[in-house]
């Protein structure tokens, strides 16, 4: 089937197998920041934003993003100019092995799009569904708080 989708701001057209999951499709197209942790909607490492909402790409058919906007971690900041969330995760030491981090940062980004000044409870809710096997979440919550503050100041 034909798939028209905007990925990381770029309008793209593909011919895809409708039985493919969004996770497998994105990885096959080189968006390797989308991680496969559990393949069953539990861990959150495959989270991407679809029309600014965090969704788990391992439990979606590829055709569900027809004519939609998909954001993967590759579309957020660059190595030269990282997004404030990426900067603050590094600054706070909120990353260990890094496997959960793309999903975590995208979920945080979805939260900050709708709520630029979240409380700690709201940050926890925003990150809910992203499991990290290495850290204790404290630094990640702090990093989101700092990034939100920076983004408010910059705007």
């Amino acid at each position: 089937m034909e798939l028209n989708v905007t990925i990381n701001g770029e309008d793209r057209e593909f011919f895809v197998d409708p039985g493919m999951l969004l996770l497998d499709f994105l990885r096959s197209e080189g968006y390797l920041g989308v991680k496969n942790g559990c393949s069953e909607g539990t861990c959150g490492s495959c989270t991407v934003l679809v029309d600014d909402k965090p969704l788990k790409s391992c439990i979606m058919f590829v055709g569900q993003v027809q004519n939609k906007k998909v954001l993967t971690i590759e579309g957020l900041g660059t190595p030269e100019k990282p997004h404030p969330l990426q900067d603050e995760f590094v600054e706070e030491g909120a990353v260990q092995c890094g496997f959960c981090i793309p999903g975590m940062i995208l979920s945080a980004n979805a939260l900050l799009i709708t709520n630029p000044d979240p409380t700690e409870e709201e940050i926890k809710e925003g990150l809910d569904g992203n499991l990290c096997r290495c850290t204790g979440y404290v630094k990640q919550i702090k990093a989101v708080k700092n990034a939100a503050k920076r983004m408010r100041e910059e705007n």
Partner: protein
Amino acid sequence: MLTNHLYPNTIEEVFEYLGEPNSKLLAGGTGLSLEKNLKLETLIDLQNVKLSYIKAEGDYFAIGAMTSAHEIYKYDALPDSLKYAAYSVGDTPIMHAVTIGGNLAKFYNWVDIPPMLWAMDASIVIYNPKETVMSSDEFFAYSRKNNVSARRELIAEIRVPKSVKNSFSEYQTFMTTENEKAQLSLASYFEWDDKGEIGKTHFVLSAAVGFPIRITAIEDKLNGSLLNDIEIDELITMALDDIKLVSSYKSTIEFRKHILGVYIKRTINGLKEKMEVTK
């Protein structure tokens, strides 16, 4: 093998496409994408059929079947019990993906929103392709025989009655970790008159039974009574005598019985408090 993904724009188109062999309706996709259904050839994706809305209409809220659990959870005017049931569906991305219609169609016994809808006596608008409005009692009896996703039907709208002055509703669900399936859930709804006499009681039990059920023995006991005349322990015994719980590898029947007793007690105490406040 899946070869087709179709996007109807209207309910009429949905029924045209349902004529395709081995086709299934697709809402949020969280259940279907995990199924290894080799027979499935066509997905009929409901994303363009305008069924995502919450509207206040007279004495009820009309909720489109494609409305997500997250939208329900965040909609201020809806009853807190329903919002909590929507919140219990899963983590934030899961709440964004799961739809109220999908939850009703793909009837896993641990689902959170349907038992609460039943307790609140919501009506379900179904097309087959003719429009039918079913009461919860009708819908759940009908779905018990065969889930909607296996039928050639579309759940289009759910009508949730607005809370009346003397009413109380609650949803409780037991899990040992946040993102596992519920082990026992109890949804309840009550109405009473100005003298404190209970006129309507619904207790819907799910997850610890094969299919959600109303606990009619204790509903009958409460209806027409004053709460002060009710012994909670007697109610719990009646409930446990009335229903047959099933076990799982996570919890024994004995454990589930205990949880149910605790939930009934909490519900009655919550009801007492609400009745005091509204006196």
